[in-house]
Structure formats: structure tokens, C-alpha cells
């Protein structure tokens, strides 16, 4: 049963909601923060580690956020801090997942761009992108997902990953090269 959130709370900024969560242990405010950010968090985690139990990971991310709220210094945006937690959850997950190289090999062998139904081609393209991301290192995949796919500014990506902006640029450069090479090997001309 979904809890009620009054209109006044829905108009509050993230910072105000966070303060209410911390000062008043206000779960309604946190529920609203969840509703605002869960889709983005979900998409980030999904693209970073392509997990099977995505719901569990999303829940884990927001649980960590709730527990860590008292330590959150509002010098940065709440979303930046939250995405950092999502990245941590995905990173932890990746460490326990095995590389799916055999899956990649099967996908490459089955690719055909001739006389295919457009929907199937679309699925193939999605498989290609997913496979290409899985082949990237964690560092390269992270910047590519956060910046190119999620359109998060480089400066914010740097805050999320706690690296200099220059390092973000460098990793993006190499990540794009890696993806381009993979797609070319798979027969794609970008």
C-alpha cells in the first residue's frame, strides 16, 4: 500500500527533504526522494553491471543512502552523492559476476545485417552495446555510462567517481575508442 505524500512535501528541494529526513527521521520525505531518483539510479546500475537481481540492487542503494544520510555533507548535490552510492553498489556487484565472454562470442557469430526484421536488428544493436560495455574495464564503462549514456556533466561524473575531471576526459577518450573498435569488429560502421 503506497503511503501518502502531501503536496507541500513534493514541492521541496532535495536539500530540504534530506534535512527533514535527518532532523525528523522523516520517512515520507525519503519516500519522495526515492520516487524522484529511483529511475535514474535503476538505469545507472543496470548499465554498469547488467544484473539479474536489479530490484535488490536498487533497494540496496537506497538503503545505503538512508543509513548514510546523517553523514551526507550538503556541499554537493544529493543526486551526485546518490549516484556515487549506486556506482558503489554496481561495482560491488561486478566483482562477483563472471565475465560473459562466451555470450559475447555467440552474439558476434549470430549477427547479420541482411534481410533482417528491423526489430531483430534493434535487439541486436542493443545486445551489441551491452556486450561492448561488458568488455570495457570498470573505469571506462563507468565514465561512458554516466556521461555519454546518462548525460551527466563531466564535472559531476568526476565528483561521483572521485577522480579529477582530466581523468574523466581521458577515460572517456579511451572508452569511446574501445567501443568503436568492438563495434567495427562486429561489423558495424558508425
Amino acid at each position, binding site marked *: 500500500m503506497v503511503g501518502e505524500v502531501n503536496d507541500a512535501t513534493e514541492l521541496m528541494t532535495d536539500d530540504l527533504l534530506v534535512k527533514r529526513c535527518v532532523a525528523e527521521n522523516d520517512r515520507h520525505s525519503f519516500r519522495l526522494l526515492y520516487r524522484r531518483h529511483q529511475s535514474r539510479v535503476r538505469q545507472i546500475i543496470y*548499465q554498469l553491471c547488467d544484473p539479474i537481481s536489479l530490484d535488490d540492487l536498487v533497494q540496496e542503494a537506497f538503503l545505503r543512502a*538512508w543509513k548514510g544520510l546523517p553523514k551526507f555533507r550538503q556541499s554537493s548535490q544529493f543526486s551526485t552523492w546518490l549516484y556515487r552510492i549506486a556506482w558503489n553498489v554496481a561495482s560491488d556487484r561486478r566483482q562477483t559476476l563472471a565475465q560473459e565472454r562466451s555470450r559475447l562470442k555467440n552474439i558476434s557469430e549470430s549477427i547479420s545485417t541482411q534481410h533482417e526484421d528491423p526489430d531483430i536488428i534493434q535487439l541486436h544493436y542493443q545486445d551489441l*552495446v551491452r556486450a561492448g560495455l561488458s568488455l570495457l574495464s570498470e573505469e571506462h564503462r563507468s565514465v561512458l555510462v554516466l556521461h555519454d549514456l546518462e548525460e551527466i556533466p563531466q564535472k559531476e561524473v568526476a565528483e561521483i567517481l572521485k577522480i579529477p575531471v582530466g581523468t574523466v576526459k581521458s577515460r572517456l577518450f579511451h572508452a569511446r575508442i574501445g567501443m568503436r573498435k568492438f563495434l567495427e569488429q562486429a561489423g558495424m560502421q558508425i
Partner: protein
Amino acid sequence: MNNLPDEDAKLIDFLCHNRSIAPPELPELEDRLMLQIDLLPTEKAEKVSNPWRRYLMGGIGLIIAASVSTTIFQMMNPPEPSIAELNQLNLFLEAYLPDLSNQPELDTGDRENLVELDPDLF
């Protein structure tokens, strides 16, 4: 993403167009999350919701530490008597303590020669 090379722009466009979309969440995920939060221990919430208690305890601790430090310091560095206090002591000695070098030893039974001390000096 301004001023991107054409190659990068096309690549990013392709990736965005064909990125995987996360499957929708279970309808009960939100309530499940809130339930997990409700089950968390509340001690942390109480401490967090009352930060002034920490400040108060810290302040009391500081006061106690300062008092102890001051006492120890005074014990190790007793204040020297002022000139007025020294003069008063000298007057007392001259008025009430006889010159022992010129007096015979007192007989403990000879109470007439004993000087009565002014209790107000104590």
C-alpha cells in the same frame, strides 16, 4: 557535449539510441524498501535527531576538564603572597610571637607567660 568530433558524436548517438533500458521495478519495491527502513534500529535515529545532546555532553566534559586542569595547575604553582599579606604576617609575628632567642624555656606549667592569640587572625 559541445564541440565533439563527428566520430564521437555519431558513436554517442548510436550508443544512446541502442542502450539497454532497465526493466521496470516491481510494484511493491517501494513499500519493501520503506519496510526495510522501518526495521532498522532506531538508536541511530535518536542520536541523529538530537545532536544538541552531543553538544551538551561535550560542553560539560570541557568544563570538568578545565576545572581539573586549573586545580592541578594551582597546586603545582601556589600563588605567592602579596606585599600586604606579608606585612600583615610580619605584624602578627612581632605582636604575638616572642623572640625565642632571648627567652628562657617556658615551663609548661607557667601559663602566665603565654600570649593569648587573637582568634580573628585565623
